[in-house]
C-alpha cells in the first residue's frame, strides 16, 4: 500500500504556507457567479406569499385573480386549505412571473382565508410563562449531588440565558432550477453539493441521477444550507409547470425568519466548591427552544463535564420548549456556544463568590476536562496575550463610570474529516485536474485542495486545476461540523499519491529505477534524493502517450485516524477585554484573544481568517444580535439587518489570534477549524462584561438595556 502520510512538517513546500486564496480575485472583483447571480435565458422569478400569523389554519387559498396578472406563468399553493401553520412567515403560495416585480404584484392578489388561532407562544426567556409548551426531557444524575453540596465550602447560584439567533446568511437561501423533461439543472446556494440531488430527488420522486447540481460559490451557510428545502422543491415544480428556468431566492425578511435559527438556552445553575476553588457539585435546570420542535440540553457542564473525569457530582434537568417559531438549523458548533456560555458564566460567578481570580479557578479545575495539559498551556498563553496579570481586577473593585473587565471562555470540538472521494487526472500535456463534489463555504476549500495536490506532485499551485461545486465530481460530504478541510485534504492526498504511483510506473524504465524508488519534487520526477537522475514533470507526463492517468482517493472516516491524515479533537480558549460605560450600559470590546489548537494547519492565513471570523461572530452574539419576537402578533420584529444587529468594522476592537502550530499538534493530522473558535467567545465577553460592571448581566447580548438593568437591580 502506498504511503499516504503527510510529508514531514519541515519539508513541506506548499502546505503550511500563507498562500492567498486562489479564487480571491474573482470574488473580490465581483466576477464570481453565485447561484443568486445567475440569469438564464427565459428565466422566471418567483415571489413568496407567507402567513402573517404564528398559529393558524388555512381555510382557502384563491389564486384566480393572481393567475391573471401580467407576466404570471405558474402559481403553486404550498400550504393548501386545511394546513395548520405553526409559525409566522410559513410559505403559503409562490408565484413565478416574467419579472420579480410582476411576481410580487401577483402575490398581493392571492386571497387566503385563515382561521387565526390565538394560542401561540413565541418567547421562552421566562419558562414559567410557556406552560405546557415546556416538556421535561430527562434528568441526568452522576454521583451524590446533595452530599457534595453539603461538603462544599461555598455554593454559588445564578441564572443565564442566550437567545435565539438567526443565521442571516448574506446570500439568501434559494436556487435556480431548470426542469427539462427527464433532466433537471439545479443551481442552489448550498453547503452540500454532493448530497443535494438526492435530497431534492427524494422529495420530488425524481431520479437523483438526472439532477445536475452546479455551485461555484456560496454566500454563507453557517449550518443552515444542507437541504434543498421547500423552496427548492417548489421552485422545481414552478419550472416544470412553466417550462422555464425559475429563480427563487428568499427576501431578507424570510431569510432572517424561516431559513434557520440557532436554539436558545437558559439555565439556573448551582455550583458547590471548596475554598480552594475545587468544584464538587453541579446542579442545573435548563430549558431551550429551537422552534416548534423543542431543543435538547446543551452539553453542560461544558468541557468540565468530560465523561469519566468531569465534575464528579452533577444533576441536570432539562425542559424542551415548543414555540410557534420557525425551526432551528445547525449553527456553527451546534449547542456548544450555548453550553460554553452557561458553564463559563457559572464558573466565573463561583470565582467571584470565592473572591478568586477566575483564571485560577479555571486552571484549578482543568482535571475535569478531557485535555488538562493543553488547556493549561493555552490559558497561560492567552493570559499573556491578554495581559491578564496587569489588567484583571476583582469584580466590583472598580468605581468609576467607565470600567474595564476581562473574562474567559473555553471550547472543544471534534472536527475529523468527512467522507470524501477525490479524483485526480494527470494528462499527457502535463496538466493536473483535481475533482471533488465539495464546496467552498468561505474557508478556502479550493486553495487547500490545491496546496495538498501541489505539495504531493512537487508542483506549483498554478499547475493544479481544482474543480469543485458539481455533483458530477466524486462525492464529498456536506460542509458542516468542521469536517471539510480534513476530508478533502485527505482524499486529495490519497488520490494524488495514487496518481503519482501510476506516473512513476510509466517513467520508471526511462529513469532506470523501480517505481517505488521515485519521488516528485520541484517539478521533477527523480530517483529519491538524486536530482541528477530526474525527468521534468512535463517530460514525465509525455511518457503517458495518449492516455491520461485517472486515480481516486477516499477519506473513510473510520480509517482516517489510523492513517493519520486527519483526526478529531480541537481545544481552545478565549479571553475578552471590554470596557463598560456604566452610565449608558454601552460595552466596547477592546480585545479578544483566541488561542486555538487545530492539528496540522494547511494554510495559516486561511486558518487565522476562520478564527478571526469566529471571534467576530462571537462579538455579535455577545453584544448585539438577538431575534426579537412579538408576543401579541407572534411575529419577528427585527426581520431585517437594521434591528437584527450585526457588528460593523468599528465595533469589534482588536482580535489577537494565536494558532498553536507545533509538531505535537501537527502529527495529529488535519483537524477542522470552522467551529471551535466560534464557541468560547460569547462566554469570554459575557464574563468580561460582568467583571467590569461588577454584576452579572445574566442574559446576552449584553445590550445597554440589559447592562443598565443589571446594575439597577444590584443597586436596588
Amino acid at each position, binding site marked *: 500500500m502506498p504511503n499516504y502520510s503527510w510529508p514531514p512538517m519541515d519539508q513541506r513546500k506548499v502546505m503550511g504556507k500563507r498562500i492567498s486564496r486562489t479564487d480571491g480575485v474573482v470574488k473580490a472583483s465581483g466576477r464570481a457567479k453565485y447561484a443568486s447571480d445567475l440569469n438564464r435565458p427565459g428565466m422566471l422569478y418567483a415571489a413568496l406569499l407567507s402567513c402573517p400569523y404564528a398559529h393558524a389554519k388555512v381555510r382557502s387559498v384563491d389564486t384566480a385573480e393572481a393567475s391573471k396578472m401580467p407576466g404570471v406563468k405558474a402559481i403553486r399553493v404550498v400550504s393548501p386549505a386545511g394546513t395548520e401553520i405553526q409559525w409566522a412567515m410559513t410559505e403559503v403560495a409562490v408565484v413565478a412571473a416574467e419579472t420579480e*416585480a410582476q411576481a*410580487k*404584484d401577483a402575490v*398581493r392578489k392571492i386571497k387566503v382565508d385563515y382561521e387565526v388561532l390565538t394560542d401561540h407562544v413565541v418567547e421562552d426567556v421566562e419558562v414559567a410563562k410557556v406552560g405546557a409548551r415546556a416538556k421535561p426531557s430527562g434528568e441526568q444524575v452522576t454521583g451524590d449531588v446533595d452530599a457534595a453540596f453539603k461538603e462544599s465550602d461555598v455554593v454559588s447560584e445564578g441564572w443565564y440565558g442566550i437567545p435565539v439567533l438567526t443565521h442571516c446568511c448574506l446570500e439568501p437561501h434559494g436556487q435556480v432550477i431548470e426542469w427539462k423533461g427527464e433532466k433537471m439543472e439545479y443551481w442552489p446556494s448550498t453547503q452540500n453539493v454532493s448530497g443535494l440531488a438526492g435530497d431534492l430527488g427524494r422529495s420530488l420522486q425524481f431520479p437523483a441521477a438526472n439532477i445536475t447540481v452546479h455551485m461555484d460559490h456560496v454566500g454563507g451557510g453557517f449550518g443552515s444550507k444542507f437541504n434543498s428545502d421547500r423552496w427548492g422543491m417548489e421552485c422545481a415544480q414552478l419550472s416544470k409547470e412553466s417550462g422555464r428556468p425559475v429563480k427563487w431566492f428568499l427576501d431578507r425578511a424570510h431569510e432572517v425568519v424561516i431559513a434557520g435559527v440557532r436554539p436558545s438556552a437558559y439555565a439556573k445553575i448551582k455550583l458547590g466548591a471548596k475554598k480552594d476553588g475545587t468544584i464538587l457539585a453541579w446542579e442545573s435546570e435548563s430549558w431551550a427552544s429551537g422552534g416548534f420542535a423543542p431543543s435538547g440540553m446543551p452539553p453542560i457542564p461544558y468541557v468540565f463535564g468530560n465523561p469519566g473525569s468531569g465534575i464528579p457530582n452533577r444533576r441536570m434537568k432539562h425542559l424542551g420548549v415548543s414555540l410557534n417559531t420557525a425551526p432551528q438549523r445547525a449553527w456553527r458548533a451546534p449547542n456548544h456556544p450555548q453550553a460554553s456560555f452557561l458553564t463559563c458564566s457559572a464558573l466565573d460567578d463561583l470565582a467571584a463568590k470565592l473572591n478568586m481570580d477566575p483564571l485560577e479557578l479555571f486552571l484549578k479545575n482543568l482535571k475535569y476536562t478531557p485535555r488538562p495539559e493543553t488547556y493549561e498551556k493555552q490559558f497561560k498563553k492567552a493570559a499573556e496575550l491578554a495581559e491578564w496579570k496587569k489588567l484583571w481586577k476583582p469584580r466590583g473593585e472598580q468605581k468609576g463610570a467607565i470600567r474595564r473587565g476581562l473574562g474567559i471562555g473555553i471550547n472543544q470540538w471534534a472536527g475529523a474529516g468527512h467522507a470524501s472521494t477525490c479524483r485526480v487526472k494527470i494528462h499527457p500535456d502535463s496538466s493536473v485536474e483535481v475533482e471533488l463534489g465539495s464546496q467552498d463555504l468561505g474557508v478556502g476549500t479550493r486553495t487547500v485542495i490545491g496546496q495538498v495536490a501541489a505539495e504531493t506532485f512537487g508542483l506549483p499551485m498554478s499547475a493544479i486545476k481544482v474543480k469543485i461545486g458539481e455533483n458530477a465530481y466524486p462525492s464529498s460530504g456536506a460542509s458542516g461540523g468542521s469536517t471539510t478541510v480534513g476530508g478533502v485534504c485527505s482524499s486529495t492526498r490519497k488520490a494524488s499519491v495514487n496518481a503519482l504511483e501510476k506516473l512513476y510506473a510509466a517513467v520508471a524504465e526511462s529513469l532506470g529505477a523501480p517505481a517505488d524508488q521515485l519521488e516528485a519534487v520541484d517539478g521533477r520526477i527523480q530517483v529519491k534524493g538524486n536530482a541528477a537522475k530526474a525527468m521534468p514533470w512535463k517530460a514525465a507526463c509525455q511518457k503517458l502517450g495518449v492516455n491520461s492517468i485517472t486515480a481516486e482517493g477516499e477519506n473513510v472516516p473510520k480509517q482516517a485516524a489510523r492513517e493519520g491524515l486527519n483526526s478529531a479533537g480541537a481545544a481552545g480558549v478565549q479571553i475578552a477585554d471590554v470596557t463598560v460605560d456604566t*452610565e*449608558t*450600559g*454601552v460595552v466596547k470590546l477592546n480585545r479578544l484573544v483566541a488561542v486555538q489548537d487545530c492539528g496540522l494547519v494547511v494554510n495559516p492565513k486561511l486558518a487565522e481568517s476562520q478564527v478571526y471570523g469566529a471571534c467576530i461572530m462571537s462579538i455579535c452574539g455577545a453584544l*448585539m444580535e438577538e431575534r*426579537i*419576537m*412579538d*408576543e*401579541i*402578533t407572534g*411575529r419577528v*420584529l*427585527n426581520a431585517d439587518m*437594521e*434591528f437584527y*444587529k450585526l*457588528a*460593523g*468594522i*468599528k*465595533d469589534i476592537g482588536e482580535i489577537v489570534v494565536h494558532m498553536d502550530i507545533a509538531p505535537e499538534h501537527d502529527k495529529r493530522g488535519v483537524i477542522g477549524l470552522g467551529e471551535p473558535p466560534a464557541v468560547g467567545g460569547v462566554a469570554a465577553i459575557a464574563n468580561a462584561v460582568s467583571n467590569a460592571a461588577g454584576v452579572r448581566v445574566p442574559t446576552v447580548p449584553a*445590550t*445597554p*438595556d440589559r447592562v*443598565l*438593568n443589571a446594575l439597577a437591580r444590584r443597586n436596588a
Partner: protein
Amino acid sequence: MQAFEYASPATLKEALSLLGTKWGEADVLAGGTDLISLMKDYVHTPKRVVNIKGLKELGGISKTAAGLRIGAAATVDELLSSPLVRTEYPSLVQAARGITSPQIRNMGTVGGDLCQRPRCWYFRQGYGLLGMKDGMSLVEKGENKYHAIFSSGPAKFVSPSSFGPALIALGAKVKLASASGTREVEAAKFFVAPTSADARETALLPNEILTEIVIPAAAGVKNATYEVRHKEALDWPLATASVALKMKGASVGSAHVVLGHVAPTPYVAAEAAKMLEGKSITEDVAEQAGAAAVAAARPLSDNAYKVQLAKVAVKRALLAAAGKA
C-alpha cells in the same frame, strides 16, 4: 414595491404642481434612503413619485442675513463638508457624524432627515403609525425597548431625525412651499405628535415641499450633540441630546436642551434649560440638568433604561458644549 409614475420636474414650481392633495397620492423623493424602503415594504404606495433632488432651489448651503441657509436637498455629506457648518455648529456636525454610513451621508438629505418616517417596527410591519391591532397599542403591550419615554398621546414611536434636536436647540426655522406660497415654521413646531394613524408626524402638508432650513447665526453660542449609540456601524441612536448655550461671560445666559429618539417628536426639555440659566457648566450642573430633562419621563414596560440614557446624553452634551468633555 407598487408601480408608480415618476416625475422629474425641472423647477420647484413644477414639482409643487405635481403633488397630490391627500397623503398617499404622491411622495417626494430626494435621497430616497427612507422612501424606497417604505415603498418596498408597502408602507407607502404612492401613485406618483416626484423627484426633487436635482432642483436648484433646494440645494446648497450658504450664509444669509438671517443666518445659515441649508437647502433641503443638501446631503448630509455636503453638510459635513461645509466650513460654514463646521465653524459655528458643532452640534450639527456631531449629529451628522452619528449617521455612521458614508453611503447614507452621500445619499440622504437634510430635509429628508426631518421628513423621514418613524422606524417603529409595528409601523413598518403594517400596523399603522400608532402600531395598533384590534384597538390595542402593540407598542404599549409589546416590545418597546426602542420606543418613547415621553408621550402623552397615542403615538409611542420616536422621532428618528438626527438633525431635529440640534436645529430646534439652535432656533432654526424651516420653509415649506406649496403652489399657493411659502410659509415659515419654527423647527420646534415642525414636528408634531400625531393623534391618529392618518396624521403625520410633521407640519408638512401633502401639497407642500420642505425647501430650506435657516439657522440663526450661532457665534458665541456653545452647542453640541451627544448620541448614546449601541453600535458604531450604521445604527439608530438610543437617545441623543442637543444643547445650545448662549453664554453671559462664564455662565449660561439662556439655554436650549432638546432630546432625540425619546419621544414622537424631538423633546424640548424646558426645565433643564431653565435651571441652567445663570450657572456655569460643571459636572454637577450638567448632571442636574440631565435629571431635570428626564423628570417628566414616563417609560413603557421595557424602556426605563432610556431615561438614564437621555439623562446621560444631556450631561455629556453640556460638558461637550462647554469644552469639558
